[in-house]
């Protein structure tokens, strides 16, 4: 705050009082904000523990604690299947994206070729493209030509061809790796693939981790994709689509629906706690410097 704080006298007391007021103001705001961010979670959990009847009332806290609601959600037909499908989609998708995007990002960062600038522009355009723009022909292709509707394959297979966002993120990061490392390896006669795997990849671990995490959560949270391709086959539903259909499909009321919501939110939050650093790094990679 101030450069030199007066140590004695009324000026000092005034300065300390201002400092204290400032501290109180900031922390009060912080607590208010924290309440705004946290209370929704609290109410969701409280409602998830209510009885069927109470779920229809305005009561804020449960009269009796129905932990069994969570069991009921697990036993709901399809819930475990949705989990399995989400894991399959997100897991496979992440691996495919990382493996296919890394060479492209490396080429864009460390090769010089005509069309490099254009390619980068196109990558960025793809990044900004809403999936709804191309969904009609893609759906017709997967459903009519490939007979893959009612499954998640139309979503997974394209991930073997790189993801624009992953490519962009990795490229930005790879740019920060000094060219000298790569040059040195080239002089030693290493092939580019070797350079990528032995020299660059170990240095790019945080970026790769961030990309993997982002991709995982993109797939995990994806609602539109499964709605288009998997909705006709309940055996292929993912958590995101299943959760939205939960209330209607199983004629439950808010208590069970909120329990299901908690069961979908919790794993993500848990993973975050274990992978915090990679998350935050990844988010800053997207925004701060060019």
């Amino acid at each position, binding site marked *: 705050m101030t*450069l030199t704080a007066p140590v004695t006298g009324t000026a000092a007391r005034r300065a300390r009082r201002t400092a204290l007021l400032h*501290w109180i103001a*900031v*922390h009060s705001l*912080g607590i208010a*904000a924290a309440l*705004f*961010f*946290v209370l*929704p979670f609290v109410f*969701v959990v409280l*409602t998830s523990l209510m009885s069927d009847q109470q779920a229809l009332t*305005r009561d*804020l806290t449960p009269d009796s604690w129905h932990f069994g609601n969570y069991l009921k959600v697990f036993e709901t037909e399809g819930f475990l299947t949705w989990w399995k499908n989400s894991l399959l989609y997100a897991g496979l998708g992440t691996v495919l994206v990382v493996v296919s995007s890394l*060479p*492209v990002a490396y*080429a864009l*960062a460390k*090769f*010089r070729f*005509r069309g*490099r600038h254009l*390619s980068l*522009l196109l*990558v*960025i*355009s*793809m990044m*900004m*493209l*809403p999936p*709804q*723009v*191309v*969904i*009609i*022909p893609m759906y017709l292709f997967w459903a009519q030509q490939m007979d893959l509707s009612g499954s998640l394959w139309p979503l997974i297979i*394209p991930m073997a061809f*790189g993801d*624009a966002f992953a*490519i962009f993120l990795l490229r930005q990061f790879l*740019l920060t790796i000094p060219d000298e490392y790569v*040059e040195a390896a080239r002089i030693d006669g290493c092939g580019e693939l070797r350079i990528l795997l032995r020299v660059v990849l170990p240095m790019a671990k945080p970026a790769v981790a961030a990309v993997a995490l982002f991709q995982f959560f993109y797939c995990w949270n994806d*609602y*539109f994709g499964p709605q*288009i391709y998997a909705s006709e086959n309940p055996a292929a539903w993912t*958590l*995101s689509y299943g*959760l939205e259909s939960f209330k209607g499909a199983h004629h439950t009321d808010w208590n069970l629906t*909120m329990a299901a919501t908690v069961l*979908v*939110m919790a794993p*993500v*939050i848990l993973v975050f706690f274990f992978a915090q650093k990679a998350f*935050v790094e990844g*988010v800053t990679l997207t*925004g*701060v*410097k*060019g």
Partner: protein
Amino acid sequence: MSTDTLPATEAAPAASGSTAARRNTLRSRRRSNALRTLAFMSPWLIGFGFFFVYPLVSTVYFSLMKYDGLNAPEWRGLDNWEYVFTSFPQFWPALRNTLWLCVVMVSCRVVFGLGIGMLITKIKTGAGIFRTLFYLPFLAPPVASTLAFVFLLNPGTGPVNTLLEAIGLPAPAWFTDPAWAKPALTLLAVWGIGDLMVIFMAALLDVPKEQYEAAELDGANARQRFRHITLPNISPIILFAVVTGIIGAMQYYTQPIVASKVASGVMGGSGVTFVPGYPDDSTLTLPQLVYSLGFSQFNYGAACVVALVLFAFSMAFTALLMRRRGGLIGSGD
């Protein structure tokens, strides 16, 4: 532009002495370099051609056809375009809503994100806990958080209205009221501000302290410091947040469709199908129209028209982003 060679090591094509031989080695090296580039770029090249170019061209094609998925496509020329722009009652509301989201939701998010970012840099005690708590809502999967908010903001039984009425404040009908549905969605979007908070936090911490100290010496107060030091330093980030926010608003699909489906309580079986945009088209967005036209009404022609409108807007904003953020592409070129 630059040559088609890989950097360095070109300098010594040693081996044979004659120029012809050197030229040959150069050409073959060039070819192998080009092949290598192609090999490394191939996943994306295939993806680009197949999942971007082909469907885009195909979408243009279908926008000129009448196609319902069952019978062969019939040529209709610009009929679908005319229908969407003049006779389709949901098109203009969707466009207006998208504009609303771009202006109101994005600015709310940016302002709030900046505010929270600034707040978090000022908190000394327990900063880590606060940061985690502020960030958590961003992690909630969109379907889950939308469901949670529809419940929380349920006009009859939700906790928010219960509390508001207990205090004596007006309790709006949120997701069931056309005037409040978009603000409710904005509230949801602002709740998930974690990602912007982190970005702004990093930007704020990057502002050189000397500038602040110099300003204080000159007698600047907090507001002046903010306007003349903080803002200019973080303006690239603000711009980035605004433009990516706008692009996100263009793609806004999951939250409004889930919210309107659940809030309306419309189930099949009563002879009425779910029409998105409940209540009163107030939550309708262009991506939802593509879905509704294409996958509920099976009018692929009109759906493709809307898809192309969406494409045009997205590309316009992308071009804007790339022009301003020259540094995005520039470095390393």
